[in-house]
């Protein structure tokens, strides 16, 4: 386990003064010892490098419900909508709920999505790093991440991608609770309901 990632997770927690149910306590060493459920996406052994240039295991996000999606920064068409969709879900939540939900956008284009490229989008779109993580896996791991999230994509000749756009809701253990393919600023009400439930 990356102690660096741990301390960051703790720091984020410290910044949030809301009472948190014990089950949602992130990344306490004790919690990490409990074996992951078999249907957790965190069973996948991949490292992610985020917009701050930190590399850590995807499964270090364990402990906190997450919205996860795949995107790439040079995308003009739908990917901005994916960010809008994440924001739209956040808008439906109370401050306390918002603080308990992580949002992780994983790039399908690690070759171009360096920490700088990711940071640029995070800044441009005013994404609060307390909740938003933009990260790239190793190039060989993209298809696997897409595999556990059931996202389909194809690299095009011009460097763009065709891909399915989905928001996937994970519980603290990395189990998929819900997904929506409705993108945009009008969130899918059923999906929002599932998010609220996960944050209780």
């Amino acid at each position: 386990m990356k102690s660096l990632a741990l301390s960051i997770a703790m720091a984020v927690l410290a910044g949030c003064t809301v009472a948190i149910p014990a089950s949602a306590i992130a990344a306490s060493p004790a919690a990490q010892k409990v074996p992951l459920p078999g249907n957790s996406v965190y069973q996948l052994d991949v490292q992610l490098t985020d917009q701050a240039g930190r590399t850590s295991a995807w499964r270090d996000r364990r402990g906190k419900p997450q919205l996860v999606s795949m995107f790439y920064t040079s995308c003009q068409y739908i990917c901005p909508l994916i960010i809008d969709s994440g924001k739209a879900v956040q808008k439906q939540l109370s401050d306390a709920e918002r603080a308990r939900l992580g949002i992780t956008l994983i790039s399908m284009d690690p070759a171009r999505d360096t920490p700088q490229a990711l940071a640029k989008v995070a800044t441009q779109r005013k994404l609060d790093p307390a909740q938003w993580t933009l990260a790239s896996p190793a190039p060989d791991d993209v298809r696997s991440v897409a595999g556990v999230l059931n996202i389909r994509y194809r690299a095009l000749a011009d460097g763009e991608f065709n891909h399915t756009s989905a928001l996937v809701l994970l519980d603290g253990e990395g189990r998929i609770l819900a997904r929506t393919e409705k993108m945009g600023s009008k969130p899918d009400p059923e999906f929002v309901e599932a998010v609220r439930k996960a944050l209780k």
Partner: protein
Amino acid sequence: MIRVIAAAVLVASPFVGVLAAEGDYLPIPAGRFASALNYEDAPGKQPVAAYSMMRTPVTNADFLAFVKANPKWRRDRVPTVIAEKRYLSHWAGPLELGDTAKPDQPVVQVSWFAADAYCAAEGARLPTWTEWEYAAAADETRRDARSDRIWRERILRWYSRPSNTALPRAGLQPANVYGVQDLHGLVWEWTEDFSSMLMDADNRNQGDPDNARFCGAGALSMNDRDNYAVLMRVAMLSSLSAEATTANLGFRCVKDTP
């Protein structure tokens, strides 16, 4: 890798009764190839780099050796997110083929993750769809037999056989022009990029202006609508998720040509 030789007597032909063993990869020369899929971004003939491909699909015996060497891929240890419950369920036990899975039958009930890991352990990889389609366009004498109606009908006939009988052994079919066997007529095969098949669940919507499900472009369509064999394979790959296994889906690996 354990080499399993069938109980056959080896005679004149070196291929007789030999299962795909480690190193049994055949060179596939580079070429230009028009996919049956209509890639709007890359229409017409596209270059395909040289690679080498396993003569036959990976067999139960091959896969058993892999699981023995990599116990985390035992069916009783793999998490369901990586391989669903049916993973290797036709074997008698986690490390035992038993009477229900013959050593020289192609391995089936393997997830994409498992196939991907097997190839990686060989220093190989799963073929891309294009590489698979390119090799599979060949018949016994031609590198591209796809326009031959008779050849297409032969392939379709394989598909019209019910799948409730036991699979034949790997390597039973005549070799194609590259020496590769069983690309048709034995099992479906995973490709590395199976999830790049952006086919709609309802394929009748081709031309749907509202295909925002796939960023950047609509679903794939077929250039070659008479090629039902390819269409069926694409539909099959499109229906799968990476942890899925089926009773007639196996795989083979390829290697880059240095």
